[in-house]
């Protein structure tokens, strides 16, 4: 066919399949992180909620301190503290309904506890006793995830399954700024948007992935800007403003529950402690930066708001601290008891039924343990 024969078909038009599929503007985050405390919006916040957040934040901080102390006493193998990030941790848990699911990363013990998991069980992993210390179904909390970002597709799958079954369950998945670089982050967000799964992704941007600062992790205007590339809403929030985090999260949860699909939330916060007790943060950051963030402390912000508006007084503060001390004393006491482990358990849950090979191995270990009890090798 020559060009002459084709003349009629000539249409200087855009490609047939093309239609702008949606206006990206509503997906983009605001230029500044959302804030409530210390702004006019604070007046509209529910005082009860603020007080509840406050009490939990104080508890959370104390929990972090206690757990860190337990590492020094050899009672915990390792502890990644979330001091400075309590607003994110607590608001995450409080924004959910009981039927919802939480998918925590390895740093999110506080959120796990705030969700109702026993404080000692939540530390089982870090104590070195067993991998996940709690029954995930008891409080709808997935195992703490150490391989970064790998829990995000789980959250998407669970939310999708719930929706298929007709349950109005929302999954909240937590991840760090470093974790956003992993392929699993990308794949999870994409599946979530394509499936319109009721998931909320909460990125705690605490400035570092161990020693690596955000500037070496991404060149994006913000992590929340990643949302538009999946066709979901991106939201930016001051992660140390508990009221703001709770508001943004609750909105995203509502949106998801109503069938509106997933949201990506970046909470701008800071890790006050080192990466874990084993880390030396002075190798990669200066005191001035930490000091600046101490001034923007989540407990402090909330305390000032509450006291300024006379929703909290010295007595209330003392009560919150005392409650936290009680929790800490109980934690300390229970963590100081040696857990009783059965070595033969290592074969019990590899499969529904141990394979013949595992049965043989279990018999071998049993014989060894008996020999050990009788003293000496044979």
């Amino acid at each position, binding site marked *: 066919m020559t060009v002459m024969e084709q003349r009629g078909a000539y249409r200087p038009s855009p490609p047939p399949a093309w239609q702008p599929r949606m206006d990206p503007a509503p997906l983009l985050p605001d230029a500044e992180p959302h804030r409530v405390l210390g702004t006019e919006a604070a007046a509209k916040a529910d005082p009860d909620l603020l007080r509840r957040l406050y009490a939990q934040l104080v508890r959370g901080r104390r929990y972090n301190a206690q757990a860190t102390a337990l590492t020094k006493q050899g009672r915990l193998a390792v502890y990644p503290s979330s001091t400075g990030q309590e607003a994110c941790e607590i608001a995450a848990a409080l924004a959910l309904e009981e039927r919802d699911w939480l998918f925590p990363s390895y740093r999110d013990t506080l959120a796990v506890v705030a969700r109702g998991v026993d404080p000692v069980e939540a530390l089982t992993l870090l104590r070195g006793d067993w991998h996940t210390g709690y029954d995930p179904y008891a409080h709808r909390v997935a195992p703490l995830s150490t391989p970064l970002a790998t829990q995000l597709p789980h959250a998407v799958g669970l939310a999708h399954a719930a929706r298929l079954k007709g349950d109005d369950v929302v999954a909240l998945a937590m991840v760090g700024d470093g974790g956003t670089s992993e392929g699993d982050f*990308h794949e999870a967000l*994409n599946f979530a948007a394509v499936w319109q799964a009721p998931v909320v992704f909460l990125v705690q941007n605490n400035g570092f992935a161990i020693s690596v600062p955000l500037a070496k992790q991404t060149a994006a205007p913000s992590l929340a800007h990643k949302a538009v590339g999946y066709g979901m809403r991106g939201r930016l929030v001051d992660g140390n403003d508990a009221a703001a985090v709770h508001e943004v999260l609750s909105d995203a949860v509502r949106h998801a529950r109503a069938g509106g699909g997933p949201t990506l939330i970046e909470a701008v916060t800071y890790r006050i402690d080192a990466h874990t007790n084993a880390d030396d943060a002075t190798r990669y950051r200066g005191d001035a930066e930490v000091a600046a963030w101490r001034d923007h402390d989540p407990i402090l912000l909330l305390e000032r708001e509450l006291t300024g508006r006379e929703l909290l007084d010295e007595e209330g503060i003392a009560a919150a601290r005392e409650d936290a001390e009680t929790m800490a004393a109980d934690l300390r006491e229970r963590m100081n008891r040696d857990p009783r482990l059965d070595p033969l358990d290592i074969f019990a849950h590899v499969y529904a039924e141990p394979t013949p*090979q595992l049965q043989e191995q279990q018999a071998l270990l049993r014989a060894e343990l008996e020999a050990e009890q009788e003293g000496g090798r044979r």
Partner: protein
Amino acid sequence: MTTVAVKPATMAQALTRALRDAMADDPAVHVMGEDVGTLGGVFRVTDGLAKEFGEDRCTDTPLAEAGILGTAVGMAMYGLRPVVEMQFDAFAYPAFEQLASHVAKMRNRTRGAMPLPITIRVPYGGGIGGVEHHSDSSEAYYMATPGLHVVTPATVADAYGLLRAAIASDDPVVFLEPKRLYWSKDAWNPEHPTAVEPIGRAVVRRSGRSATLITYGPSVPVCLEAAEAAQAEGWDLEVVDLRSLVPFDDETVAASVRRTGRAVVVHESGGFGGPGGEIAARVTERCFHHLEAPVLRVAGFDIPYPPPMLERHHLPGVDRILDAVARLQWEAEG
């Protein structure tokens, strides 16, 4: 479940039927993967499922294997029984972290509270003239990952029976489908076409007294052919089809080798670090004083899978198997 009389069928058809019956029996069974819905899969194994059960039950996912397996984990957490298709062996590698760190470990991590009944279908192996990355034998990776069952059928009937068992299992199962047997046909167990085969039991496909060929999946027909050819050379070979690499059926295998006193392990996966080492070692541990010769291995070479025009030199064939049998120190006998 309907139990129509079953005529000669291909392995692919038996797999389709197994998926269909499992989905009909249990609404928790969901099929997902790349091109499994509208297209019915590149090997047509999921043909018709989206139509019969809807796209929510048989879902075309985005193109991301870690995402497929990772979301399947979440779905299993909520009580579904996902059956995931990895389009080709080498394209399961992106999902390796989800497989090794979560799928294989979740039950254990949670002390049994959170089992993951996921079936991961992986078309594997060569012999179909596929270009690079389309012919890997990846079973060694899965065998070395505790927490996974690893199953592979060699017959049409087993394709049905083992896939049903895999889907019914409360543990994750890597279900390896020998690509070059997809179009193999047989009468498919006319009495019990839809019989479920328990996982973990090897089967003697051919009885013999001279030596045992221990094999599985795509190499089973090759071994049977070799056993026929061996008769001309005076050897009466027994052929054991493992069917399940994990759990391993030590009993059946060791019983056979104790009877014959000689064994060759045959598979097309690379030899070094491949399944054959494990199998030879455990057979030797169990049958040492019955062995007239070391357990030998006939395997793919220790090379990246070769281009199609050369694959026949790589794949264990009848001659290479018989050469190995010949090396089983027959002189020592007389």
